[in-house]
């Protein structure tokens, strides 16, 4: 992912101009990803209001395949799968959002401090973060979820801690590359004050990376939550969650009830696609590189 040094991003150029100048593939990715994300946001906010049935109500016949009445079939307790999965967005994505926010803030603080001040602080943090970085974050998350106990906030915290080493590295290298640019000194020489420098010359680089990092973080977070749910460490039943429903559906896979496995996974796929497409498209749009000048 490109950060500062190859980017032509300048403060003052607004997003629309960048978008129009981007290659068609990037534009499509932003649009398509954006639409998917919008759908998800609608699910999150209006979920319970737009679904045909109560996700917790065991009103229907059990294990029905998809039909006109039950769009995605029913589960083994007679609940409408579609309603469950739509409402599940709240938990999967909500927790993810909190996790992304927390890890971003911590990563921002630690990473920029480390990059800006350098020295012993940097060395210590780097040593620490490098060690954590090479360890599979999902296993951290697993341990933390058990040690911290069940609950929304605890899960969010666990996932955010798993993401911190990555964010730290990203922000740190961005800070260093911004710091080393000559124009900071040049600006000081002509007497610009610190606030002006930060606003016009430093912040744009961070902002351009912000949206991409958030999108990517949401994707990874959603996947982690679904993974936790699948392993039985997610939100406790009967709360609907994509991973948990996938796990419970799995028991019926062998008897041919494919919809209990296919649809929960499909929701995860759509969420991931939405975030990944958006983040990739945004990355290309906001960091245009001059192609092939040799």
């Amino acid at each position: 992912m490109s950060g500062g040094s190859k980017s032509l991003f300048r403060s003052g150029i607004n997003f629309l101009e960048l978008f129009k100048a981007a290659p068609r593939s990037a534009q499509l990715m932003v649009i398509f990803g954006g639409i998917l994300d919008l759908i998800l946001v609608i699910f999150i906010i209006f979920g319970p209001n737009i679904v045909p049935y109560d996700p917790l109500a065991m009103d229907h016949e059990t294990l029905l395949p998809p039909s006109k009445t039950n769009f995605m079939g029913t589960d083994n307790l007679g609940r409408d799968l579609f309603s469950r999965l739509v409402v599940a967005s709240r938990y999967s994505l909500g927790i993810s959002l909190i996790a992304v926010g927390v890890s971003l803030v911590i990563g921002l603080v630690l990473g920029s401090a480390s990059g800006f001040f350098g020295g012993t602080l940097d060395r210590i943090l780097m040593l620490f973060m490098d060690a954590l970085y090479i360890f599979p974050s999902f296993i951290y998350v697993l341990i933390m979820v058990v040690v911290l106990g069940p609950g929304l906030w605890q899960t969010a915290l666990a996932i955010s801690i798993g993401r911190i080493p990555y964010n730290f590295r990203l922000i740190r290298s961005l800070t260093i590359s911004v710091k080393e640019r000559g124009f900071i000194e040049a600006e000081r020489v002509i007497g610009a004050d610190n606030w002006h420098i930060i606003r016009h010359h430093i912040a744009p680089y961070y902002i351009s990376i912000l949206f991409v990092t958030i999108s990517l973080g949401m994707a990874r977070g959603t996947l982690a939550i679904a993974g936790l749910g699948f392993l039985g460490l997610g939100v406790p039943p009967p709360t609907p969650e994509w991973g948990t429903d996938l796990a419970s559906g799995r028991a019926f896979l062998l008897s041919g009830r494919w919809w209990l496995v296919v649809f929960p996974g499909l929701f995860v796929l759509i969420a991931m696609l939405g975030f990944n497409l958006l983040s990739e498209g945004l990355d290309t749009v906001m960091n245009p590189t001059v192609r092939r000048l040799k």
Partner: protein
Amino acid sequence: MKLRYYVIFRLLLAIPTLFILLTSVFGIMHILPGDPIVIMYGDQYPTAYVDEIRGKLGLDRPVWEQYLDFLKDLSRFNLGISMIYKVPVIRKVQDVFPTTLEVALGGLSLAVIMGVPIGVISALKRDSFFDHATRLLTLYLHSNPGFWLALLFQLVLGLWLGLVPISGRSPPGFRLTEITGMYVLDSILTFNFKALGQSLSYLFLPCFVIGITSVPYLSRLTRAAMLNILGDDYITTARAKGLPSRVITYKHAFRNAMLPVITSVGGSFTGLLGGTVITERIFALPGLGSLLMEALTSRDFTMIQGVVTIYALIVVVMNTLLDIVYALADPRVKY
């Protein structure tokens, strides 16, 4: 000659890394706010019993004392006694470790075998149909949750088409003298080709799924590295020399692109290892991941700590090995 020094240097460097990881393992278990024992047991058992457990585990002693004991035990390869199984943790770990290693390495190999060539060809045939098609495919694969893909493959390839077994490591009546515990390796070493075929067929699906989830990352990275290098000046020099294009692509371009690829294999492995926990559950493989899950659900404190220590060890060893391979590949690495 000089490589020996680098190997030693790198091994020495691995120690503080391992140290930090182990300390953070310890930290997670002990120092987090909220008494872990209360969290894990408090709601199920009366306070007196909880205190007894705490005493037995030595968790009522001051933290730094526990930490020193932890390190002391580690140096003697003592990972404690499992609370549930009442046997040394290391014994349980030894049983399951080869399975995870086999699956992880198999998956990694498949990922490299599939991902890297795709990246190279995409770079060489930039903007061709192949390039666009694979980029779309990798974009999709990147977003596809691995465990969902695994289940779908189980369903289609295993159940509906009956091509491959869907769970476990071996069929009933499987005979093999175990040396390392890794079935593929052992069957080769004992010339037991029937066992080789059987274990490979059981290993195929889990390794394939693990591999394919790492393909997007590896192929994109390889493609980017190749494109980058193909624009470098020494490639122009090679073309000016009138060398055959095969030589230019592999001897000059790919050889240089291999360097960032080696680094990225490390990153892939990390993610892959995290994914083995879920994969082992889906394919009913008795590995470290399933041991970890058992320990987590039964709140086997010492077992959790022990298994995570082993994971840390695997990761550090792998990264050290990769760094050494990198040093072999890049003569500029100073030592």
